[in-house]
């Protein structure tokens, strides 16, 4: 017992030294947490806001927020660009040290973790959360409470070469999973085609390929308080995924970074990815002298089975306000402003980040591109992964099993059983 006391004393000293001050509500705040946070007032906003954003967003954001500063001249915004590689560590460190920014861009899969650390301010009721895509809204809810808002979104669709598909006798992509696989096999028969479709054979992020197949069969991979990776629907989806490698329609050891090259030269005429691949493959083809590549391919929704609804993975980034902010009103006003449809369209023009607000998709900038409009359609049914703090860890365990399915013929049943056992021993972290 004495040792325990000493231990607590030791860790506490450090923690206190790090955070500067203790928080009185401790870890017990979850139970009484409000559905939405206190209302904010937008009158007389003033002061400084520290904003963190990653990648291209961090670079472009200062130009965008100039509009906000015009509207509220008393508020000045300081944007700090953070590199993606070190972003997660930087956030965790700043949360423990009590040096968080006021507003930050937050990766969708970090929400559970940060909310679990009591770092985020619940979304005030004045922000209408129904304006966002349902899947995107799902990424900001932790145990029934919203923390922040979806900022921009992306989802995955099937890219396919229309010219090779029609050679193989397909004018459209079948919407059922069995028919879809037959199409991939038929395309593989065509001249110059090595593999029917490129699917990620396990390793980091492969769940983003497999889980949509399960969702599109009606599977749920988690309930409110537990992981449910071992449902019959998920087993069937994993077996379906494995059969592509089994029947050698997909390469279990694909060379790295060749997606654009093999898609444009037709040797792998299908893959599953997000909207950013449109400009990548078109630019790649243009470099090779193929200026009109845009008309040679199209995108199609994730195929379904057993009467399920086509449901892809929704990614993107959220915006959060940190609980330690000293300028809560201005922080939320900025977040609200960033999720106005007009601002979102402007942001799309600047960075090609897709709006999380459904109303913004009515704008011409987004409706005139047919492929993009299809992404907009897929977004309405796209789903988010569980928002448990331990999701990233469980996803890694799931990815490891998917690799065995793709490369070692592990059965779907065994794979999801192992993944579920690991998920249970890791726990939801709540």
């Amino acid at each position, binding site marked *: 017992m004495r*040792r*325990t006391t000493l*231990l*607590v004393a*030791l*860790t*506490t000293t*450090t*923690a*206190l030294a790090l*955070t500067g001050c203790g*928080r009185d509500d*401790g*870890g017990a705040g979850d139970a009484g947490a409000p559905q939405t946070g206190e209302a904010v007032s937008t009158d007389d906003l003033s002061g400084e806001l520290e904003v963190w954003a990653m990648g291209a967003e961090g670079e472009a954001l200062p130009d965008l927020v100039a509009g906000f500063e015009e509207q509220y001249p008393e508020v000045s915004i300081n944007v700090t660009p953070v590199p993606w590689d070190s972003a*997660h*560590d930087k956030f*965790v460190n700043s*949360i*423990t040290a009590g040096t968080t920014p006021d507003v930050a861009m937050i990766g969708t899969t970090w929400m559970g*973790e940060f909310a*679990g*650390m*009591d*770092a985020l301010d619940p979304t005030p009721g004045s922000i209408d959360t129904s304006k966002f895509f349902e899947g995107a809204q799902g990424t900001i809810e932790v145990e029934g409470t919203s923390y922040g808002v979806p900022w921009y979104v992306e989802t995955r669709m099937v890219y396919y070469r229309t010219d090779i598909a029609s050679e193989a006798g397909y004018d459209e992509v079948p919407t059922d999973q069995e028919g879809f696989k037959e199409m991939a096999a038929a395309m593989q028969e065509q001249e110059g085609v090595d593999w029917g479709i490129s699917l990620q054979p*396990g*390793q*980091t992020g492969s769940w983003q390929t497999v889980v949509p197949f399960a969702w599109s069969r009606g599977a749920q991979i988690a309930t409110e308080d537990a992981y449910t990776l071992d449902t019959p629907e998920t087993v069937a989806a994993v077996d379906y995924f494995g059969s592509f490698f089994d029947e050698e329609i997909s390469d279990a*050891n694909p*060379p*790295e970074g060749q997606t654009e090259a093999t898609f444009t030269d037709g040797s792998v005429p299908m893959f599953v990815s997000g909207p950013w691949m449109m400009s990548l493959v078109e630019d790649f083809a243009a470099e090779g002298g193929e200026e009109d590549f845009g008309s040679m391919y199209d995108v199609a929704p994730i195929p379904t089975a057993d009467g399920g609804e086509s449901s892809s993975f929704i990614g993107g980034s959220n915006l959060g306000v940190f609980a330690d902010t000293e300028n809560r009103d201005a922080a939320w006003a900025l977040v609200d402003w960033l999720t106005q449809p007009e601002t979102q369209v402007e942001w799309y023009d600047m960075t090609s980040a897709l709006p999380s607000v459904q109303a913004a998709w009515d704008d011409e900038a987004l409706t005139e591109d047919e492929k993009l409009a299809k992404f907009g359609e897929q977004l309405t049914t796209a789903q988010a992964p569980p928002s448990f*703090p*331990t999701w*990233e*860890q469980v996803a*890694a365990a799931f990815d*490891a099993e998917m*690799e*065995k399915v793709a*490369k*070692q013929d592990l059965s779907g049943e065994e794979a999801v059983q192992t993944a579920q056992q690991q998920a249970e021993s890791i726990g939801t*972290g709540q």
Partner: protein
Amino acid sequence: MAAVTGTRRRGAPPTREAGKARSSRPPGASREERAGWLLTLPFLLLFGVFTAWPVIQSVFFSVTDITNRDLRTPFQVNFVAFEQYAKAFGDPVFRKAALNTAYFVLVGVPLTMTIALAAAIALNTGITRFRAVYRLGFYTPVITSIVAVAVVWRFLLNPDSGLVNTVLAWVGIDGPNWLGSTTWAMPSLIAMATWRNFGTAMIIFLAGLQAVPQQLHEAAAIDGANAWQRFRNVTVPVLRPTILFVSVTTAIGYLQFFEEPFVMTQGGPLNSTISASMYTYQQFSFGNYGYAAALSYLIFLVIAIVTALQFRFLSEKED
């Protein structure tokens, strides 16, 4: 420096007694002593804050169930004794990582040392006219960034267009997918690590070889010893401390095998190249601080044992 030698000359323990005994000592020595402490203070402070304290803290973490969820609520941390250590033994991925690390050390250390010694001898005996060029060439991989090295090796090992498989194809061998195969990924990383690291060992061996007295070689030659006998009975005994030093430092480095799998394979395929350090790193990044701290102390323990064994078996013949 002066303060330290002054203290030693008196033969008194320099630390705890200092304050107590100050009055009975000549005032000059005391001032000298105080200056000594003052001069070492910046180091002691930095050492304490950035080395000693983290070590103490991580030892405590390793006997708790702390995760990143506890960072803001430290009162919830539970003392779990050696549960985290026990967990490691039942963790299939860590067991795999430990085996991979052992494989890497058992093959990599002798290989690196043999190549380093061979290169050092070749350079020392002057079989080439361009010694400096070779010395530089062999040492260049050591100072090159691992990321740059990784890019180049990835090109070399590319199954379709890589130089390695192209050369193998000339002699009719169908080369494997080096980094994508569970059998070949580890040998590929060992080859890369050996290539990258032997330069350090070579430089140290070279210094050791240059310290071998030429007269001994000449005397042995007059007695009729051939080149191998001279190497075996003259060079190796003189070189023994160098060999010990190189084997200890190389083994410690290789037991912490991290960068190669981290940049080349991410531990894959199928965990065939994941190392103990890399798995520890993963656990830290998942926020399992208690478990990760326990894993790092297990690695520390193994390093201590291996080093002790090396001292026992490589240095005993010296006296």
